[in-house]
């Protein structure tokens, strides 16, 4: 460790959320790099400014919203100089100068001075009793006023103004909100939603004067009233100005740094002086300034990376969403919803339920959403908005939300606010609402990833992610940090799955260490999440050339069986198309007897599962099954699992085609192929669909005139009917299209991304174009699939049972008799 004298000095001006988040992330990435000094003008540690509204409303205390105690600064060796104002930045000598004249040198400077409330230049604006709404002092002032005065006027009907008004009302004051325009929160809401909001706030006792322009604040020694342009006067003992915030960049401007509406920064959060960084509300990035916490955290991450000298991340702006922090009012807004000729709208309004939803589309993508009364799908719309998903295929059901797309998994209850603390949110890990709320409050969590790490909620199947996000929003009062736009593969890298796939192809990378080196992996050999993904990408990109890395395979794929909760394994032999023979059944029965296999069960994919096999018995079990002509059923694989069939025209009086025969052909052609996630097929002999083909990754429905090919269904975590791909006349075409489709998925899918998720991401039309319409492309995909199959169709059981592959895996290293 460098000693303090030799370390470069980082000075941070501003002890708010953006500055300290940057410091926290920096400490995480490069703990000992800098000697850090933080200047804060407020006499507190760092607190969560977005929770001032609940403090004002009496729902939280100041202690509740503290993020970092003074102890934290001590523990991390940070010098905190609170209550000290910086007067000047001397860029020539690289020093900051405090108001008292002390000079502190820096090697790197971070400006995070935030913003100031805009105080309208009205007569009387300096009277006692006229304040902004920005910091703890303002809140204390308001709480104090509420105990001795009666009438409050809040100027500004935006987010902050309404939160202030709500708080003051809860403190027992008569509150009038004055707004210049005729729509509340006009930056986030349209007229209808603004009207609904106004109505429900009026029902709670809030009074509105709008549209109205304030002309003067009246009073001698203290404010006594407000006069409007129309001549009307209102009595007031307290006036809160909440008309907006203004980036606080005076210090930077005086130091000669380029400023416009804020301090102008680059994509690496640097100002025009490369030694000086700036983050947060004081910043102007690509002409945008931000006043919400999510973008500011995005900026902090990039800035911290750069300060830590691990700087390849860049900030390219944020899309923001807003939620009003008034308990009992559900309101969500995101993106752009101003009317425009190139935009289309989907609107649903149910006045008696108090529900309003407006989704704004442009070019088949969601560009904005306003939700009132029922906001459970807010995060879901927001996700599609950020991802730029083509939503045309779900357009007619879009307004009803995720649950009505059949994409809702097992979620039932969807109003988080109404839930008791004992309500289970995450069914996989048994996590209740109360546990999540407690972790968020006590451990100061901000993101869904934090919540996952600490509570395990939504960390398994993920179907409760929306609910957990709601709990997070509800607990934090809404303005939580959104997920980054491009999701990194895992904590080992900032790069996405697409990045990795592209880099492997473009640069001809052929081993996992090569990929990690090329892409600046942060860890020496990855983790359980990225290594299997890279292994798959290499395998799919370089068939016959890449050597499968066993140590980067999940255990099931390493030992070709499924691990069970007690460490034993289950064994599923392949039964082509679900067809078996008396000899095979006899052999299975013999194996079960010989190895004392406790459970024999029929699976959902028409196979027989032998459960509770000891690991060391696996090769012998396989040898016996091999001897009866059976091979691995790959029930453990991210690859082709099963082809389920009905009996079809061979037996069934309704059957139109030989569905069993086609299923067997498909399975014989496709077995052994590795895919991003598991792939299940089914072939039904007629539209009665006894093989349940319309909830499979790929399903074929035979009809009298041919074969309908469907895909992108699921019936697990999520229930989703398939999409119709095309209809063909022959078995050969069916096989060619399904193989081409699978190959496209193999080349584009992210590891562990099921086919239906891939289809959601890429779009049905784009897929149909490549595997149906463009015949040459289809044939090319088909031949790449066929080429890859040459190398993958050898029975892994036979290799282990008969040729001793991986013998180490199945025998102990030593057996010790201990005294």
């Amino acid at each position, binding site marked *: 460790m460098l000693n303090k004298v030799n370390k470069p000095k980082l000075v941070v001006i501003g002890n708010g959320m953006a500055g300290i988040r940057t410091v926290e992330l920096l400490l995480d990435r490069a703990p000992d790099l800098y000697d850090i000094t933080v200047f804060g003008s407020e006499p507190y540690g760092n607190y969560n400014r977005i929770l001032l509204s609940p403090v004002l409303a009496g729902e939280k205390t100041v202690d509740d919203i503290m993020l970092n105690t003074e102890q934290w600064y001590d523990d991390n060796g940070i010098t905190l100089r609170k209550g000290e104002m910086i007067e000047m930045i001397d860029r020539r000598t690289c020093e900051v100068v405090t108001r008292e004249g002390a000079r502190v040198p820096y090697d790197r400077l971070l400006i995070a001075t935030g913003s100031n409330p805009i105080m309208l230049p009205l007569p009387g604006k300096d009277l006692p009793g006229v304040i902004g709404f920005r910091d703890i002092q303002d809140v204390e002032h308001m709480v104090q006023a509420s105990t001795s005065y009666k009438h409050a006027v809040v100027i500004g009907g935006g987010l902050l103004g309404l939160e202030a008004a709500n708080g003051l009302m809860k403190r027992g004051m008569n509150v009038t909100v004055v707004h210049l325009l005729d729509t509340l929160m006009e930056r986030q809401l349209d007229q209808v939603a603004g009207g609904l909001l106004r109505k429900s706030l009026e029902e709670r006792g809030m009074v509105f004067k709008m549209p109205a322009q304030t002309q003067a604040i009246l009073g001698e020694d203290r404010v006594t009233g407000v006069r409007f342009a129309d001549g009307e006067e209102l009595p007031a003992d307290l006036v809160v100005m909440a008309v907006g915030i203004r980036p606080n960049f005076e210090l930077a401007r005086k130091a000669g740094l380029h400023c416009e509406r804020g301090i102008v920064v680059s994509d690496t959060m640097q100002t025009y002086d490369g030694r000086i960084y700036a983050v947060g509300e004081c910043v102007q990035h690509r002409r945008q300034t931000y006043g919400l916490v999510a973008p500011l955290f995005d900026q902090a991450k990039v800035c911290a990376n750069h300060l830590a000298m691990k700087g390849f991340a860049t900030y390219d702006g944020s899309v923001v969403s807003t939620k009003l922090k008034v308990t009992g009012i559900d309101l969500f807004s995101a993106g752009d919803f101003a009317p425009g000729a190139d935009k289309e709208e989907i609107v649903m309004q149910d006045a008696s339920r108090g529900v309003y939803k407006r989704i704004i589309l442009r070019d088949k993508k969601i560009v904005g959403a306003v939700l009132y009364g029922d906001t459970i799908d807010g995060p879901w719309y927001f996700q599609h908005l950020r991802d730029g998903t083509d939503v045309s295929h779900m357009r007619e059901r879009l307004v009803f939300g995720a649950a009505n797309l059949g994409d809702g998994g097992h979620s039932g209850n969807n109003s988080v606010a109404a839930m008791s603390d004992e309500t289970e949110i995450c069914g996989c890990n048994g996590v209740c609402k109360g546990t999540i709320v407690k972790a968020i409050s006590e451990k100061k969590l901000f993101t869904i990833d934090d919540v996952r790490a600490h509570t395990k909620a939504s960390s398994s199947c993920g179907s409760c992610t929306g609910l957990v996000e709601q709990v997070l929003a509800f607990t934090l009062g809404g303005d939580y940090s959104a997920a980054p736009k491009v999701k990194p593969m895992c904590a080992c890298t900032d790069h996405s799955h697409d990045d990795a796939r592209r880099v492997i192809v473009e640069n001809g990378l052929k081993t996992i260490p090569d990929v990690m080196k090329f892409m600046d992996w942060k860890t020496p050999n990855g983790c359980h999440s990225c290594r299997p993904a890279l292994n798959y990408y290499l395998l799919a990109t370089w068939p016959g050339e890449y050597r499968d890395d066993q140590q*980067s395979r999940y255990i099931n794929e390493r030992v070709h069986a499924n691990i069970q909760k007690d*460490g034993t394994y289950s064994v599923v032999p392949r039964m082509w198309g679900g067809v078996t023979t008396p000899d095979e059944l006899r052999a299975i029965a013999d194996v079960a007897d010989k190895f004392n296999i406790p459970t024999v069960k029929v699976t959902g994919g028409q196979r027989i599962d032998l459960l509770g096999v000891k690991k060391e018995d696996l090769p012998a079990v396989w040898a016996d099954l091999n001897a009866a002509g059976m091979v691995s059923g790959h029930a453990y694989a991210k690859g082709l699992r099963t082809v389920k069939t009905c009996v079809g025209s061979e037996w069934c009086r309704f059957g139109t085609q030989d569905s069993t025969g086609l299923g067997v052909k498909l399975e014989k052609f496709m077995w052994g192929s590795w895919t991003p996630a598991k792939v299940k097929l089914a072939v039904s002999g007629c539209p009665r669909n006894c093989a349940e083909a319309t909830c499979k990754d790929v399903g074929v429905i035979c009809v009298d005139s041919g074969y309908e090919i469907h895909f992108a269904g699921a019936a697990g975590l999520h229930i989703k009917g398939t999409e119709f791909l095309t209809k063909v006349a022959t078995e050969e075409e069916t096989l060619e299209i399904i193989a081409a489709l699978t190959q496209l998925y193999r080349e584009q899918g992210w590891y562990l991304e099921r086919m239906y998720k891939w289809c959601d991401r890429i779009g049905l039309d784009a897929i149909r174009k490549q595997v149906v319409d463009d015949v040459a492309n289809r044939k090319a995909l088909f031949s790449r699939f066929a080429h890859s199959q040459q190398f993958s169709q050898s029975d892994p059981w036979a290799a282990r049972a008969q040729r001793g592959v991986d013998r180490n895996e199945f025998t102990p*290293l030593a057996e*010790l008799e201990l005294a």
Partner: protein
Amino acid sequence: MTKWIEIGTLNDIPVLGSRVVRTASGDIAVFRTSDDEVFALDDRCPHKGGPLSQGIVHNKRVTCPLHNFVIELKSGTAVAPDEGCTRAHPTKVENGVVWLSVQTAVAVPAE
């Protein structure tokens, strides 16, 4: 005094992999890292008893195959925010031979 037992050679354990040593008081998982360090832990995840020997080894950690708990190979403690600890056993490698000293005391979180 530490009692060392010879359990095999370094080459018997795959790089970034693991082998099991059977003992009367339960299995011990022996891990090899990418830079040929060897560590030994009780083959039981502190979470739900999953066999750590079957997990993916990365850096100086192993991920349990059952529910993705990540365990430090050196100390046997779960990586935060997960909590728990499994018993660690000292090992040494001399001239390519791996030695193990089986501990009988209960696991305590290190440091």
